[in-house]
């Protein structure tokens, strides 16, 4: 929490994320389970996620797994790994606002919050964050619009036919507000971070204009920031890509921490980010997983880690993390080098 107050604690707090394949490889190497990996790398964050106890959904005729939003997914195994494609967009043919309103929307009572207090107590030595839902589709409003309507239709309709989307946004937020309210209440102030995951940037620019963000997504993020703040929690906003143009908007909506700082995206230079925003904004992430982690040498990784920690960690305000899950093409040696460097260089003073 000292880091949040923009002061230097004893060391930079550490986080971790990886694809299932990487977790399996590390588990084998360390002869431990997922929590063993987190302990080994002295990860300071733990997640609390209430289990889903709601209805099951039938598998579609083509083998797609349907989730609680009615969105279907199929696994695609390729040479490079496992990808999951969205195969069913339940609102792709929705014509009227009524079509959208009458869709079957999830309910907060489909989750069991009874163990949340105990889970928080078990993790009391750590920073507790919650992504909320732990299902394939645990993403924010913009992502959900693309799953529900299909990506092309969602992006097109934001320009030419926004009314059905507005109804969907309303329904999504009704669920989120109910869900997060119950979650934070059950945690009795122990949840430190609401980790809200959406994406507003591509490799070279924003995906949508700042005006469009303000019109459709700003208020949702603000509502959730305010909700978390009511229980002493703060929002970590995940948005991949080149999002520097939107950072003022994020901060204005109440976002306290920005993830993942995709440094290979355009204009996401850590020095400029720290300079312009570092006084008030905390950064989470910063270690490139597109080029550095898969293809860099352990020496390059160590140097980059030191540089990142020095720049982003100055005067506090930085949570160390890779800028996305370690991808299957990342050698384990590189992950080892990374976390060795974290502990060599992450200590203040």
């Amino acid at each position, binding site marked *: 929490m000292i880091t949040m107050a923009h002061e230097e604690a004893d060391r930079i707090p550490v986080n971790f994320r990886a694809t299932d394949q990487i977790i399996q490889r590390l588990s084998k190497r360390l002869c431990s389970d997922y929590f063993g990996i987190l302990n080994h790398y002295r990860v300071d964050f733990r997640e609390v996620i209430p289990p889903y106890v709601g209805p099951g959904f039938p598998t579609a005729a083509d083998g797609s797994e349907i989730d609680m939003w009615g969105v279907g997914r199929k696994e695609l195994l*390729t040479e490079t790994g496992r990808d999951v494609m969205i195969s069913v967009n339940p609102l792709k043919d929705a014509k009227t606002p009524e079509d959208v309103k009458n869709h079957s929307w999830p309910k907060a009572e489909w989750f069991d919050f009874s163990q949340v207090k105990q889970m928080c107590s078990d993790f009391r030595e750590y920073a507790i964050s919650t992504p909320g839902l732990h299902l394939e589709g645990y993403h924010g409003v913009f992502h959900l619009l693309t799953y529900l309507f299909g*990506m092309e239709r969602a992006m*097109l309709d934001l*320009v030419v036919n926004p009314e059905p989307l507005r109804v969907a946004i309303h329904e999504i937020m009704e669920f989120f507000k109910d869900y997060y309210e119950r979650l934070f209440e059950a945690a009795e102030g122990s949840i430190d971070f609401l980790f809200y995951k959406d994406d507003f940037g591509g*490799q070279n620019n924003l995906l949508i204009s700042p005006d469009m963000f303000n019109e459709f997504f700003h208020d949702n993020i603000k509502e959730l920031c305010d909700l978390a703040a009511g229980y002493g929690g703060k929002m970590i906003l995940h948005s991949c890509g080149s999002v520097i143009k939107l950072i003022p908007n994020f901060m204005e909506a109440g976002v306290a921490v920005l993830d993942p700082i995709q440094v290979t995206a355009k204009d996401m230079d850590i020095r400029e980010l720290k300079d312009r925003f570092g006084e008030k904004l905390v950064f989470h992430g910063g270690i490139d997983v597109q080029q550095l982690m898969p293809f860099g040498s352990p020496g390059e990784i160590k140097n980059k880690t030191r540089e990142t920690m020095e720049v982003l960690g100055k005067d506090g305000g930085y949570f160390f993390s890779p800028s996305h899950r370690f991808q299957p093409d990342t050698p384990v040696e590189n992950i080892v080098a990374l976390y060795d460097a974290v502990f060599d260089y992450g200590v203040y003073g």
Partner: protein
Amino acid sequence: MGTQDIYQTVITYNKMKTAELVQAEIEKGVDVNRILNEGLVAPLEEVGKKFSDGDLFVPEMLAAAHAVKEGLEILRPHLLRAGTELKGTIVVGTVKGDLHDIGKNIVIMMLEGAGFGVEDLGIDVAAEKFILAAKEKKADIVAISALLTTTLPSMEETVGLIKEECPQTKILIGGAPVTKPFAEKIGADGFGEDAPAAVAVAQQLLGV
């Protein structure tokens, strides 16, 4: 008047009006190539430029491309009748292992708007499928798209195989993780930084 009104419908993303006005101009007997170039291609280029400059974004690019697509649907039979030749034939797909297609779809709409014949092979396309389509359609260009950095090796392999089997066909690649140095390294003939650039490179490669 006339084609300028069509132009306006594209930059205000009003595809129903685009189709309506294209039909109206055809009925007035306006030269179909003028309708195409002034009413559809020109505004798409304006939007494309703003997109490349970072002032417009994917939603607007999609909306303009869709308006042009709607206008082209009406115009196409008349272009064929007028004997307007396609500038070239291009086979397009997302590389094997990658499922992303919005960028590819925008490229296709822009290439068609620019007067190319385009065959869309979809996503997760194996080299063999590119090669078969290129031979069947006698393609001038094979255009390959990727979004994931993890599929770049697949792109390299695909380009190599196409060069072996179709040495006369030009290869154009693009997508978020693709760079000019990478394109040169793997022997692609052209690299498009974004959709508007892809059209320009296609025109350059074929000298049209």
